[in-house]
């Protein structure tokens, strides 16, 4: 049977290698060995995810490796989280994200989703060309802290405003933090449409999400 430190290393290595099978097997072994699942996530899976995130930031690895690592992390997480009582949940926050209606571009949003997951967020990625009401419904259903709206075209940017206006109209605006991003978005645009935050890059989006969640918790 593996020791605790070895299990942490293997979990981390599985994420770095994008080896989903190894992530799942080691997560099961962690449980069988009586390793605290909270520690297994923090010192194993999350450590690996941070390594992958840093390598992607330096472009030592590319998007496919990042996305495959995120898949491995999710697979391991699913097993370990099932062992943690809900009141001890480790999630930094819940995010619903997608590319707005009329826009089919997803690469930027996928990077943000992968990095958010790697940093401990529960992410519900709705894909691309997402109808306005779908963001609102899903955010309500999963009690999302954050709604992340991506748009790549200047002609589709207006749909970010539509989601915020819709939230306002149905009385849900105060329940969710709204972050916007993607090619043509700017801080000026975010301010203009009443978004809570804008980030230029994916790592900035993670930092901003953590800050905004912290502020939200302090307020409530």
């Amino acid at each position: 049977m593996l020791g605790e430190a070895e299990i942490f290393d293997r979990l981390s290595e599985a994420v770095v290698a994008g080896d989903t099978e190894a992530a799942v097997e080691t997560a099961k072994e962690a449980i069988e060995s009586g390793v605290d699942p909270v520690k297994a996530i923090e010192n194993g899976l999350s450590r690996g995810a941070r390594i992958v995130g840093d390598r992607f930031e330096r472009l030592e690895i590319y998007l496919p490796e990042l996305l495959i690592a995120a898949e491995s992390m999710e697979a391991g997480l699913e097993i370990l989280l099932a062992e943690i009582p809900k009141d001890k949940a480790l999630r930094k926050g819940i995010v619903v994200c997608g590319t707005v209606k009329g826009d089919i571009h997803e690469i930027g949003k996928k990077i943000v989703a992968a990095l958010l997951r790697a940093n401990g967020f529960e992410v519900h990625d709705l894909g691309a060309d997402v109808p306005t009401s779908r963001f609102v419904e899903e955010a309500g259903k999963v009690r999302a802290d954050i709604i992340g709206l991506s748009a790549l075209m200047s002609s589709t940017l207006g749909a970010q405003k539509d989601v915020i206006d819709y939230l306002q109209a149905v009385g849900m605006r105060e329940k969710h933090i709204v972050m916007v991003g993607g090619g043509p978005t700017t801080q000026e645009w975010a301010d203009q449409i009443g978004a809570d935050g804008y980030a230029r890059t994916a790592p900035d989006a993670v930092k901003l999400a953590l800050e905004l969640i912290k502020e939200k918790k302090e307020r409530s």
Partner: protein
Amino acid sequence: MEKALTGRPCSERDYMLRVFAARLREIVKEHGIKYDSEAPIPSDNGLADDVFKAALDFFIEVGAYCKDTERIIKFDEDEIKEALRTAPSQVVFGEGRDAGTLIPRKPEDKTPPWCFLGAGGGPVSSEETFLSLVEGYASIPETNSITTPALTSVSGLRIRPKSPLEALGAIRNAVLAREATRRVGRQGLPIMNTLATAESATSLATALHPKYGLRASDGYMIAIMDPMIVDFDRLNKVCAVLSLGAPVGACFDPLMGGYSGGPEGTAVANVAHHFLAALAYQASWHLPFPLHIKYVCSSPPELLWAISMSGQAISRNTHLLSLNLNYTAAGPLTEMCLYETASAVMAAVVSGLSIEALGVATNKYEDRMTPMEPKFSAEVAHAVAGIKRNDASEIVKDLLAKYMDKIGDPPLGRKYQECFDVKRGKPSSEYVEIYNKVKGELEDLSVKFQR
């Protein structure tokens, strides 16, 4: 279409990660393609031909993906070679004395590149700004065709995707662009991205009616999504443009750092996108614009290498009409923007490509573009046609040293209204000074401008 309906079923995610990205990595290794950081503009003909062969093998094996049918579209070697053989080797754009012929070029070719000048679909805040900018672009002597900005609102309402506002925006875009060329007496100039505002096929078809001023002699750009993905909406655009008898231009932007991986994969993928465009879109002309995933511009050395390498692969092995579009990180009224432009234009022109210039400040900020940047691009493009790739590479290395330390946090400069007399269409004296300074620095590096 039949191939899109009957190809191998595959999820989009599997196609992108386990088919496209995985095989591209292997193909690059198998063909021994290696990025050389010492030569941002490489001179190795053998390597260029290897990139072409790698792209051919890659495209035959991997094919493209249709989002709507969720199937892989494959072509065999004979089909690809036939498409390359029968693709137009020249296209006449425009009318009357403003008409011109886009022809293929070769590496180190003295033939002046086609200069497709303007805003590359960058966003503008008002119709007045749109008109004024396009008048400026049409007034540049080297302009062979216009690339317009994109309106972001119509009659004060922000454009919404797939809405009547988008269709109205596309119509307004066409009308204003033609009007701007009339105002400066170059009404025959072709507009090659007239419908920058038309994201949907419906909007494009709506604005194609001749009463809005578009012609079959204009160019019509239709996107292929990264990595080698098509959908029905874009294929419908192809049908609409071909039914007009107009030349389809395929634009594609394999992201370096994205599914294509590093510079080597980006170069191979960029070439493979040309094959897909010739086959699935019946493209008469091609508009690659590979960008850096982090900096969203064409300026880092790895990107210049990928532009040059893929350009040489295409121009040495085909007669396809290909123009590289570049994005800068920095904005107007900055030296960095002009250094970046000079680097990207040089990488394209000495490698056998023509140019579209340009997306300024990553093409995302409203009104952050002026006619000075495309004018500079055209002057550089004409000046470097015919110079040796080795010499261009040395010049580019000097230019890279001037801007790479700022690429992560570039100066955004000023908006059009802040560095131009919009009514008179004249740049501020401050901008003229910067323009001439950078031009002088290029002259010191042996670039011989024609005026």
